[in-house]
């Protein structure tokens, strides 16, 4: 066992899979000698060579496009987009090709690629470096969207993403990259995709979050516990396809649900979860479902980013409001 930060866990997962599967290769900007701007690919070019850890020209749409071509011919490319603010040119390739190549050819050609990107706000980064676009990708049939919330989940879920026969968008919360370390076995064991994790059991309310927001959510759970409120916390982990059953089981038990995400509120992925609960668990509810999301504003430059990211206080306040009257 080693104590690893999230970015180190990503690095170990990439190294592990490259060592056991020679069809895996990494492409992206500055990922070679530089090891990536966050060092996620640190040392991998020296170990696996320039042909398998490829510094690309600065062209995100092209990176996603060549990854599709590589994957269609049997490679398993893991493409790094330097920041999510630069991920938007990949959307053309992801929605028009990566997500539907299998369907368009009746399974003749497939697209086992991973599109990795640092994701979210909270590290005092420059403009266009702090976005949370998971809902855009979650709206694309044929994709998987996976967001780890800890080093161990980053390791296990990234291994699973690389082993998945279909395209995966893997969003790595930037502010967790070096926030804390955790024991990670580095034993090549993957974690299941398409499954939520119950990170904390409780009986009074269900808190649903993913990625970096798991930090504030778990902290809020601790604070609420001191007030005598016992909350369950679910780490969604795979946004698409959504393991709604785990969420429904929890909501049926607690009768209350607060959904937390860092992306703007309107048409954020929380809306999808709330709609599923409304359709399938309405009569288990003791209070309205609440969302605690970023405001419907442009992600601000960093002086205001702490006011943009949903805070522990906002989450706790929402939980208290759904507990009222009980």
């Amino acid at each position: 066992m080693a104590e690893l930060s999230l970015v180190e866990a990503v690095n170990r997962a990439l190294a592990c899979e490259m060592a056991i599967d020679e069809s895996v290769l990494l492409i992206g900007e500055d990922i070679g000698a530089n090891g990536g701007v966050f060092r996620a690919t640190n040392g991998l070019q020296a170990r696996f060579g320039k042909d398998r850890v490829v510094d690309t020209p600065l062209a995100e749409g092209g990176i996603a496009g060549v990854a599709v071509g590589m994957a269609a011919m049997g490679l398993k490319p893991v493409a790094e987009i330097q920041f999510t603010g630069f991920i938007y040119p990949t959307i053309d390739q992801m929605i028009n090709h990566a997500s539907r190549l299998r369907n368009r050819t009746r399974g003749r050609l497939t697209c086992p690629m991973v599109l990795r990107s640092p994701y979210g706000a909270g590290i005092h980064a420059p403009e266009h470096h702090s976005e949370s676009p998971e809902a855009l990708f979650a709206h694309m049939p044929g994709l998987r969207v996976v967001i780890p919330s800890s080093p161990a989940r980053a390791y296990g879920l990234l291994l699973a993403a690389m082993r998945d026969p279909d395209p995966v968008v893997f969003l790595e919360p930037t502010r967790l990259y070096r926030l804390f370390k955790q024991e990670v076995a580095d034993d090549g064991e993957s974690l299941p995709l398409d499954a939520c994790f119950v990170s904390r059991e409780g009986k009074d309310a269900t808190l649903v979050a993913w990625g970096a927001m798991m930090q504030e959510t778990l902290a809020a759970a601790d604070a609420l516990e001191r007030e005598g409120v016992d909350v369950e916390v679910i780490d969604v982990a795979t946004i698409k396809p959504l393991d709604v059953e785990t969420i429904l089981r929890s909501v049926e038990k607690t009768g209350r649900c607060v959904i937390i995400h860092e992306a703007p509120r309107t048409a954020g992925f929380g809306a999808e979860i709330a709609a599923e609960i409304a359709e399938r668990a309405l009569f288990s509810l003791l209070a309205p479902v609440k969302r605690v999301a970023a405001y419907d504003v442009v992600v601000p430059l960093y002086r205001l980013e702490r006011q943009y990211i949903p805070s522990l206080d906002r989450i706790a306040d929402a939980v208290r409001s759904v507990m009222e009257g009980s």
Partner: protein
Amino acid sequence: MGIHTSVEPDIATIRFLTPEGVLCRPMPPSVSDELLLSLYRSMTRTRTFDGKAIALQRTGQLGTFASALGQEAVGVGAAAAMAARDVLAPSYRDHGAQFVRGMSMAECLLYWGGDERGSDFAHSRLDFPNCVPVATQIAHAVGAAYAFKLRREDRVVVTFIGDGGTANGGFYEALNMAGVWKTPVVFVINNNGWAISTPRALECAATTLAQKGVAVGVEGLQVDGNDVAAVYDTVRQAVDKARGGQGPTVIEALTYRLGDHTTADDATRYRDPDQVRREWSREPIARLRAYLIGKGVWSADSEAALQQQCLEEVNQAVSAYQATQPASSDAMFDYLYATLPPAYVPQREIARRFAPSAGGGHG
């Protein structure tokens, strides 16, 4: 020389046959009469197919269709220069090339007739399907070529794009990567003069589109795209070069879209009919026929026999297409993922429940 002087590379047009079908330079050794006859048959098959496909569309038996009328030499000549193990990354008007690669006419009709099974090619199983979002296929070609280079596989990728497509950043990004990585790929620009209603001059100010390769260190050549011998020989050399590890080539083929953009388009709204009439005197099939007849290897009898043969082949394909029953609603779900995630299984059930009880045939 001032800063207003434009510097353009001098790129000559490669041509062997004049529009009248007369040799303007000796045929290259790679182009035998036997090969020319085979190319002639392939171009005629494509044109016969196009005529039938448009007729089917006009009578409500086929969806929107993009004809290759007038551009047969580009697809046929380029595909004939490929080995079977090579890979094609087409645009959406390249069935001339795809037929040479082994795609059946019935598959082509199924695709334009609204059925994904048309892209499940029985032959050339690694070829990419048609690509409608303009210029997105170019990166696929480069990525595929990278895979072959990495695995030291003896395969080359040939990809097609239109003149309008070269204005798209996706073309340029991928071309640039191919130059850096020296991937075994050949980019064929099918310059048919028109991007729907936008003429070539409004797409780009450069004298040639071939010179777009120059800026990224990729050799750029221009051929008379209505001279199938020029297309074949030039692509063959570029394929050989790619196979030999010498990297990519851009080949601009000058041709003309004699038909509408698609059956949903009416080119008389934006195009001078005199221009179209002039271009009919330069088209590739009559040109090669004149040459072959002049050489004494083709005749009115062989032409009649070929026409009959093509018509029979097309009619058989139409029958096969029309006999193909529509897929069930499950077909929307079955190839979405390797295994349909449990989250979407209920949706497949709903689609089954609400599927029309009796489906009609195609058309």
